[in-house]
């Protein structure tokens, strides 16, 4: 197989990896915020449910979660698998897993905010929503950015776990090519891809951090 053909196949896998990455971030960042609210809820039922959810998501391998979501509906409930289901399963698995991690990061950030910020906002008459979105959240984002960067870099590499349920992302393709072509070159390409991807992620996050450095 010519290298150009190999690269073509890898490129297809690359876009799948990028899609998993993008979908996970876009949905898990807001969902994580909601989950963190549940985790901090005064209602013990909500708080306990969310705690258990976070505990399972963080306490078991993402690989296992993907398998459970992919095959669960069929083996557990007898619902026949549709061809597109595994893509959906990957999206659901990644979003639920990463939302749990992001929720704990948000919680740490929110709980680290000084009480005085809430009190000042209350005295000035801000509503609860205004207080959170105008005063608290912008400061929380600045505080948690380094942790979010960490998690995002892990996500880039975690996209390769989609291979467990046969989604043709970068790593799945590279492994298949390595076997069929008896060449390690595809894996080298894969390694370069993840590295460059994360290089870009780190660069972008650093830019955002710098942008938020206008205050302390």
């Amino acid at each position, binding site marked *: 197989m010519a290298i150009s053909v190999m690269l073509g196949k890898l490129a297809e896998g690359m876009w799948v990896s990028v899609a998993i990455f993008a979908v996970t971030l876009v949905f898990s960042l807001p969902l994580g915020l909601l989950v963190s609210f549940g985790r901090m809820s005064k209602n013990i039922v909500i708080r306990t449910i969310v705690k258990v959810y976070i505990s399972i998501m963080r306490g078991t391998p993402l690989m296992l979660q993907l398998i459970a979501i992919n095959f669960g509906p069929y083996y557990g409930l007898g619902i026949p698998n549709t061809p597109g289901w595994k893509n959906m399963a990957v999206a659901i698995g990644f979003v639920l897993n990463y939302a749990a991690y992001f929720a704990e990061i948000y919680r740490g950030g929110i709980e680290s905010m000084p009480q005085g910020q809430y009190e*000042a906002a209350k*005295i*000035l008459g801000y509503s609860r929503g*205004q207080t959170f979105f105008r005063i608290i959240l912008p*400061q929380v984002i*600045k505080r948690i950015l380094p942790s979010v960067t960490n998690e995002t870099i892990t996500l880039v590499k975690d996209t390769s776990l989609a291979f467990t349920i046969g989604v043709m992302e970068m790593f799945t393709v590279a492994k298949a090519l390595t076997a069929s072509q008896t060449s390690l070159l595809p894996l080298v390409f894969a390694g370069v891809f993840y590295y460059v991807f994360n290089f870009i992620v780190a660069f972008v996050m650093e830019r955002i951090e710098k942008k938020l450095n206008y*205050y302390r």
Partner: protein
Amino acid sequence: MSLLEMRNIKKSFDGTEVLKDISLTVEKGEVLGIIGPSGSGKSTLLRCATDLEKPDSGEIHYDGTFGLVFQNFNLFPHYSVMKNITDAPLRVQKRKKDEVYQEARELLAKMGLSDKEQAYPYQLSGGQQQRVSIARALAMNPDILFFDEPTSALDPELTGEILRVIKGLAMEHMTMVIVTHEMNFAKQVSDRIIFMDQGYIEVEGKPEDVFGSSNARIQEFLGKFREP
């Protein structure tokens, strides 16, 4: 008509009674100074008056709005000086932008901070931050302005600038309630003084009467300030 009336306020934290039975009124245009030793309940009283704490019992009645200047300023660090002052009038009171900005500039001029409009809180000294926080409170046009030990977080050389600002406001007949450890200042600026001790109002009256009181507790308290 009193702007604020508090009646039989009681407040405990974890079984410790901090306010035992407090009643007070604040009249329009007066400056009320609240003094007393640490732990006497001054700050808790102020926090109850400003709705930051809920009293366990008693009644609070307002006739108007209030603002509060905190000991630690509590400016919003991600907002410029201008935005700290204008955001609430714009977003909460929904007032017109031109009018709010003009008023904010006047307040900054009054605070001697006209050149700091675009600065961020971290770029300012403690005294400047406190003046911004006073401007922020005044921008809401409150009927009463509360001060919770406004100079306690400041270096001694920065205390004077804040006290001057508050004296200026007193001259304009701003209604103010000031919790302070600055005895001379309290004496000079207040129309009326409350001396608190162990959750009670121990002495209340004109500054000269309170400072001249023969009450043993207040004499003991003031004595600590006279010692070098």
